[in-house]
């Protein structure tokens, strides 16, 4: 497989992103304010206590900075396929001598790289200076965190990939995408650190892919997991990526046979 066309797609989406400077500045400010507000809410909830259930305030801060920061980087385009089915351009794209899925991933990765450099890093610098955070438990743990975050991206991409395939059957996927995002937001740990979920909810979350997205990398970063547990989590993340992508691929095959493009 030649990689160069995919690099070109990634570069294109990277450059596209840089065209809207004012909007981008606002979205960085948005992330900073969100982290800050969650921090204030938890500071009030802690009310001077040093720890709750063995979790210190500084671990909570770290959770929000990392997961909301990663959320800004991860932003997978849920409408990549739906938009192309809607306007009919899917027909010509399928004729191109490059893999549609490869192109989809490349476009999203280009975007993620842009967000990492120009969104995550400035937002991270400002919030860490203002409210501080935990240092990674060790250099090795930090590398494991990076790898796990990459797998987390894979899981989020997999969820979006699977859901996007539904647009072969539905006229409008806005409603189900919105409901999907509710699940991601509540169960991934981005808006509520999963340590504080009621036990019965944690039981459910354990068997879902959502905690693999942000919470697993955060736990690794904080040194909450032993070496063996880390390997087990990597396997869990890999398992979800495989299941979600395979499910998506099956629907893709079925959907393609069903695809009817109206005009063009």
């Amino acid at each position, binding site marked *: 497989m030649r990689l160069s066309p995919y690099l070109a797609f990634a570069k294109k989406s990277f450059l596209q992103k840089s065209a809207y400077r*004012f909007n981008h500045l606002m979205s960085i400010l948005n992330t900073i304010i969100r982290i800050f507000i969650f921090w*204030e*809410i938890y500071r*009030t909830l802690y009310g001077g206590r040093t720890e*709750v259930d063995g979790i210190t305030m500084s671990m909570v801060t770290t959770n929000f900075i990392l997961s909301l920061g990663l959320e800004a980087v991860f932003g997978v385009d849920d409408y990549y396929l739906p938009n192309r089915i809607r306007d009919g351009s899917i027909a010509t794209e399928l004729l191109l001598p490059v893999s549609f899925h490869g192109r989809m991933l490349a476009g999203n990765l280009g975007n993620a790289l842009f967000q990492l450099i120009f969104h995550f890093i400035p937002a991270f610098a400002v919030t860490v200076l203002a409210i501080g955070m935990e240092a990674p438990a060790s250099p090795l743990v930090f590398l494991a965190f990076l790898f796990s975050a990459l797998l987390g991206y894979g899981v989020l991409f997999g969820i979006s990939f699977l859901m996007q395939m539904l647009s072969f059957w539905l*006229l409008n996927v806005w*409603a189900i995408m919105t409901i999907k995002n509710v699940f991601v937001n509540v169960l991934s740990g981005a808006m509520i650190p999963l340590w504080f979920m009621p036990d019965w909810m944690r039981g459910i979350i354990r068997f879902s892919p959502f905690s693999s997205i942000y919470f697993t990398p955060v736990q690794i970063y904080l040194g909450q997991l032993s070496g063996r547990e880390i390997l087990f989590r990597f396997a869990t993340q890999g398992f979800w990526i495989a299941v979600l992508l395979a499910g998506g691929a099956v629907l893709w095959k079925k959907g393609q046979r069903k695809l009817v493009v109206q005009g063009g």
Partner: protein
Amino acid sequence: MRVKNDTMHLAGVYTKMIFRSWFQYKVDAILRSLAVFCREATGILVIYFTLTKFDNLNGWNIYELLFLFSLLFVTYGILIIFFTGLRDFGGTVRNGGFDRYILRPRGLLFQLIFSNADWFAAVGHGGLGILLFLLSAGKVGVVWNGITIGYYIVTIIGGVLIQGAVFLFLATLNIYLLETNSIKELFYWNARKFAGYPISIFHKAIQFVMIYVVPFAFINYFPAQFLLRKEDMAQYPEVYMYLTPFVGVGMYLLAYLFWRKSIKHYKSSGN
């Protein structure tokens, strides 16, 4: 009298048309309302789960917080029946649709309001607001009598007017600026995400914005204080609990004057 009847009739026709176009795809229409409901419930779920671990937030228990949130959703549910046209006004100006409104022999605001009502989002938001109210109203120690019910109704109207004024003001800005979405995103949508929490927990700068710039505090926090009397009210002037209707009417009048003055300067983006 004839003119008034005609206006009511036209408003009715517009509403019927909106329902028809929505119900062209029935399943999608229902799914959309449900999706709006779920999306808006995200913040509620988060606060609910959080308070199963921590039993209060600055002295507010879960029912009091749900009550605080309910005011936000009930007012927004009513708001988007009347002000969707203004919320989406930027797009109308950019695609030249506003020029069509100008050519018609009816008031501009009238057309913007009645031809754009978003009933399905209203069901999603308003339904959630009513549900939260029903869950919490009996458990927050409010005695529901003539005075409190009257106060509640006036508060809702005031809250709708405050947000309506913000939309009208931002819509008017579109006449001068081509792009106002980022300003709206920052000052309205962002602020709204946190407006469900008691503002006393936030940094002074954020409180300032919520009280004096985009006065969300008058939509839910201060009115809820009148009904609930929590301790954290001590740091604000007591009179703020009675200002909601005045802030609402005042802001709306100012926004309306700004609109009337600016509309004379309107130049089409042309095409």
